[in-house]
């Protein structure tokens, strides 16, 4: 009976959160755009008109180098004759995957450390907290760049570097949440009836701290996509011929391209912008939905 009441209350709370989310118009638009972007990324092999890594040959056998958009190549071609639209679609797969996975790594690592530090407190907490302080004292991009100088540049390594050097915000947030929860009655009661550390962390602390963590995770994806693009733009991230939005822009760094071939640098830039903006809107809407009093 109490369980039924509790679950009804939970359902109502969720219902209210959904309604608040629905009222956040930019958030809803962002969510729709992200679904579409994810779909184009998944379906890239079927949507892309040409092979992104090879010289593209149009329906009438035409080949074009650094050509402006035309019916055969709707976003034009690059200097080696590859189709820009196809590259953009495949680059989206790479950039979105890196953003998602790197942010997940950072969240998991930071979340787990925060849970442990907050729950055990004492020396464990002091050591991990000071370590987090030290790592976040470096300007993030500085360390990421330095580590990428001696790690072979591959997609997996880019994910690992970004993930392992951006866990600190998630750690701080999780630790703060756990400290708040630790002295609540239900957590103390769980401890009193003999629930072990792992059980308390898994069943009581983690589920109740999940809200703010989800918001942070969303923004973490945006951050990771921006970091990957910056790294690839500087030539230390995803390596050609594999396309990412960042390294497509790196190819366009010459003055000639900038001045007279905007179809090479506008699309990847706009793609990053639209993606990150949508994620930021979504994060804002989630924050409102989960905690209506925060912000504004």
């Amino acid at each position, binding site marked *: 009976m109490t369980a039924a009441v509790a679950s009804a209350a939970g359902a109502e709370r969720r219902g209210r959160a959904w309604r608040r989310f629905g009222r956040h118009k930019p958030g809803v638009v962002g969510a729709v755009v992200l679904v579409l972007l994810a779909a184009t990324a998944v379906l890239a092999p079927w949507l892309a008109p040409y092979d992104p890594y090879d010289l593209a040959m149009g329906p009438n056998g035409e080949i074009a180098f650094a050509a402006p958009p035309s019916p055969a190549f709707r976003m034009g071609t690059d200097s080696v004759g590859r189709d820009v639209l196809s590259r953009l679609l495949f680059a989206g797969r790479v950039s979105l995957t890196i953003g998602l996975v790197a942010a997940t790594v950072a969240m998991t690592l930071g979340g787990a450390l925060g849970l442990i530090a907050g729950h055990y407190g004492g020396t464990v907490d002091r050591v991990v907290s000071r370590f987090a302080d030290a790592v976040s*004292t470096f300007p993030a991009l*500085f360390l990421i*760049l330095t580590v990428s100088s*001696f790690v072979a540049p591959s997609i997996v390594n880019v994910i690992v570097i970004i993930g392992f050097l951006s866990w600190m915000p998630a750690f701080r947030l999780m630790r703060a949440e756990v400290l708040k929860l630790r002295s609540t009655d239900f957590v103390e009661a769980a401890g009193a009836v003999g629930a072990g550390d792992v059980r308390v962390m898994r069943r009581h602390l983690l589920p109740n701290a999940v809200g703010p963590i989800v918001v942070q995770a969303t923004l973490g994806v945006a951050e990771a996509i921006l970091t990957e693009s910056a790294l690839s*733009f500087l*030539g230390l991230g995803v390596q050609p011929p594999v396309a990412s939005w960042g390294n497509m822009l790196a190819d366009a760094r010459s003055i000639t391209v900038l001045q007279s071939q905007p179809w090479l640098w506008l699309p990847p*830039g706009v793609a990053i912008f639209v993606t990150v903006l949508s994620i*930021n809107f979504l994060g804002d809407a989630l924050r409102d939905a989960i905690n209506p009093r925060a912000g504004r």
Partner: protein
Amino acid sequence: MLPFLVNRLAQGAVILVLVSFVAFGITAAAPGNAMQTFIDPNIPPAELRAAQERLGLDRPIHVQYLRWVREVAQGNLGYSFRTGRPVAAFVGSRLGPTFLLMGTAFALTLVLALWLGTATAARPYTVLDYGVTGAAFAGISVPSFFTAMALVYLFSLRLGWFPTSGFEDYAAGHAGWRLFVDRLWHLVLPVTTLVLTGAAELVRHVRSAVLDEMRQDYVRTARSKGVGEGAVLRRHALRNSLLPVITLVGVSLPRLLAGSVIVETVFAWPGMGRLLVESVFARDYPVAMAINMLGAALVLLGSLLADVLYAVVDPRVRYS
């Protein structure tokens, strides 16, 4: 105040030690060392081992660390693998342009964010408010290199108002006043890039801080005794909302430093950020690590200043 300062400095020192662990750890983890970079491949292995002993590279890692710390404390940051020049002098020569760029950007970011943040908080939920908030969201979502490229495209290539890159027009050989103007001209686009990103980040926080203060009782009191809206805003709400903003400004320094890496690279600005990218490409670890340490020290200094400023500005804050 003094005990607080001492305590805060001690905390900073602890972090600095940990920072040096991280820095040294990364350098130690990097493949290759000074030996492999400088040596002639024809040297016999026995001599190599002797040299390794002389340089202490065969010693345990903690001994090497302590030696490194002693040298760093004496101002010796090692030698660049790439050029053989002392790191301190090498990095030092790049500090001027970076500080010029960052200082200008920092000051303008603050002014812009405070102005727009207060203006939107004064008239919340109006066209201006939605416009600025939307622009701020856009600003934090654009990669800074894309902003930089768009600015170069528009203002250098299309309109021809500003140079596309560089620190000054070396070929023109300007001096005195002309040189100053020339450098100012080169500064416009890189600074604009940094300000657009930085202000977008800050303006939302200023807005919500001012908005919070506008709801306080003392604001209602001020209004009810007939203080004009402008004075309420500037003299009461803005001043009090500076407190959370000070903390944020301290936190935004690492972002500004990271932004300088991108902006200096795009605009070929001869600063520290671009040197970091060059060193990373050349696997010049001593230089890269020195820049990392310097960045960390600047961030620590920034947060220390923010804390002290906080205590000075807010009479309620009493550290003991």
